[in-house]
């Protein structure tokens, strides 16, 4: 079916990437302007360009809006419990080392409740590609403060604004030994897709933090009521610096309008992934 009901547009009902989507589940449950959809999109594009049979790709998520990613991609996909996407994926990756296992989950899932698995999977250099969708809050449960929430950000559990110091995720990933570390935003789709492709082709623990708008839960109380507002902020404030040397410079303060946000591919080293030695 391809019914151009309006003269100046071709209305269709199938997207070229649909074979890699569970298209019958679209439109997905994510909010208008939510960046997670773009991440799903980027991931399936990367699969298409990876040169690896989709049957050899596996996607694992935890719980959260970001964690819904696994449910929309048409590869073997698993939606583990909150925080356990990484060890679940580890089980798959170590039992079937010929599979390309990608974990897509949220900042809360991977670095709050799942933080321990994160540091240990990286330390061991398990052959996993990890996309951490950082929307600065727990979107799914209504926007509570999380470990990446900026100082001062308001939330239902921080009515006076968050006073905790957020993680600098690439710094952390580097300190625990990840083989590949990058940060992008969903606005940087092309570079982000390149990073995902690099992770797919690279052995060992690869990590990309992707900043994504959550207009509903994070945005509303923090002056980004629409996804586009946060996108505009990224357009204005992001600087690309590949291979940055001082990881602590990667601190983000999105509440401060003058704060530059550094994105880029920061680390890409060979360490010998887990099990290689055997």
């Amino acid at each position, binding site marked *: 079916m391809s019914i151009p009901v309006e003269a100046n547009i071709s209305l269709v009902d199938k997207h070229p990437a649909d074979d890699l989507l*569970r298209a019958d*589940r679209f439109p997905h449950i994510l909010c208008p302007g939510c960046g997670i959809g773009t991440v799903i999109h980027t991931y399936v594009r990367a699969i298409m360009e990876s040169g*690896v049979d*989709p*049957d*050899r790709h*596996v996607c*694992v998520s935890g*719980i959260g809006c970001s964690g819904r990613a*696994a*449910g929309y991609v*048409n*590869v*073997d*996909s*698993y*939606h*583990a*419990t909150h*925080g*356990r996407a*990484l*060890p*679940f*994926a*580890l*089980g*798959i990756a*170590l*039992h*079937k*080392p*010929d*599979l*390309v296992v990608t974990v897509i989950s949220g900042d809360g899932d991977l670095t709050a409740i799942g933080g*321990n*698995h994160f540091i*240990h999977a990286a330390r061991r250099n398990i*052959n996993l590609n990890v996309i951490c969708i950082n929307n600065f809050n727990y979107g799914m449960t209504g926007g509570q403060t999380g470990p990446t929430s900026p100082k001062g950000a308001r939330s239902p559990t921080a009515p006076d604004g968050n006073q905790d110091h957020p993680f600098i995720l690439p710094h952390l990933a580097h300190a625990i030994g990840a083989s590949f570390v990058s940060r992008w935003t969903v606005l940087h789709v092309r570079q982000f897709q390149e990073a995902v492709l690099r992770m797919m*082709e690279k*052995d060992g623990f690869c990590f990309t933090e992707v900043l994504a708008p959550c207009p509903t839960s994070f945005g509303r109380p923090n002056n980004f009521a629409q996804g586009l507002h946060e996108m505009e902020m990224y357009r204005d404030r992001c600087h690309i610096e590949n291979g940055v040397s001082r990881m602590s410079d990667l601190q983000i303060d999105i509440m401060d309008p003058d704060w530059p946000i550094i994105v880029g591919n920061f680390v890409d080293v060979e360490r010998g992934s887990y*099990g*290689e030695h*055997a």
Partner: protein
Amino acid sequence: MVKLHAARPPPTPRLLSGARFMQGDHACAEGALAAGLDFFAGYPITPSTEVAERLSDRLPAVGGRFVQMEDELGSIAAIIGASAAGARSLTATSGPGFSLMMENIGLAAMMELPIVVVNVQRASPSTGLPTMVGQSDILQARWGSHGDYGVIAYCPDSPQECFDLTFEAFNAADRYRVPVFVLMDEVVGHMAERVVIPEPGILSIRVRKGPRQPPGKEPFLSYAPDDDLVPPIAHAGEGYKVHMTGLTHDERGYPITDAGVHHKLVTRLVDKVRKHADQILMTEEFMLDDADTVLLAIGCTSRSARHAVRMARAQGRHWGLLRPKTVWPFPSDRVRELAASGRVRQFVVPEISLGQLRREVERLTRMPVINITHAGGAMPTPEQILEAVES
């Protein structure tokens, strides 16, 4: 491109056939190997550590994967993931670690991914007496995760049974797609006895029921059960593009927010075990035919009970032992039958817990139940059992 993991050639056999003198923990590890164990993930904890230690050496040597995880939360998640990829997978722990696994035991139940969890019970609660015996995780094994679900649990009473029942556990897990527990206790885990491991070809490993359709166009329904309530399973990498979630899901595996679907799904999860109890149940009956006094005991405690039966018989008393080898499902029908036989006057339940097993018996009969309990660290002796019944 991803490099393939170069598997080591297997220099030692999977089956160490023949008679060995072995502790229960090691026999358990060997039982898992005999059952085709592919993947072990664990975190050390007394008194189960020897299971892991033995497998750290034996499993890679037969081409399997041993991973020592950062904690028990990771261990259980990893073996569920490995199971999703088709592995026969195992973890071993004790009470505190078992408690930490509770959330993901529910995930395995909900995703219907077969796993085996060994819990070598120690004196509890909390850190308790790490090196001493307990049997008080029995009800936790049944009810420890939130919600309703079905599980199977074996209680070996000797190193030989640690081997045998761990082997069984894998078959049962794959047959019913439920989490299966081997509830050992520190005494059977640490005691060494003769263990006879069969020659190759004797033990039969059950193969998981796979899809009856080729991968490809037709979407595969991961959760469409056969008449036996168990759906066929497709694994990661087999081309079926499955989706599995701990959320309530439809037959395709997709999340759905619907109370009716939930009720049907969870009822099936429970019924898978309930309706096959006959096939799953394993008990030992010792001198039960003409018994008026039935001892019911599990694990190491049943050794005292068996001895008490011998002693009582030597005194001309009509005692017998009913020993659940599967504590879950519980041999309820058999207990009811005995209670209704007209012959049986009383039940005697010795246990290393403050009455967990007794509750099960009480639920099934109004007959007197003499409960001989120890909270942990020591097991009731045969003499204590005799004395308790006499007084």
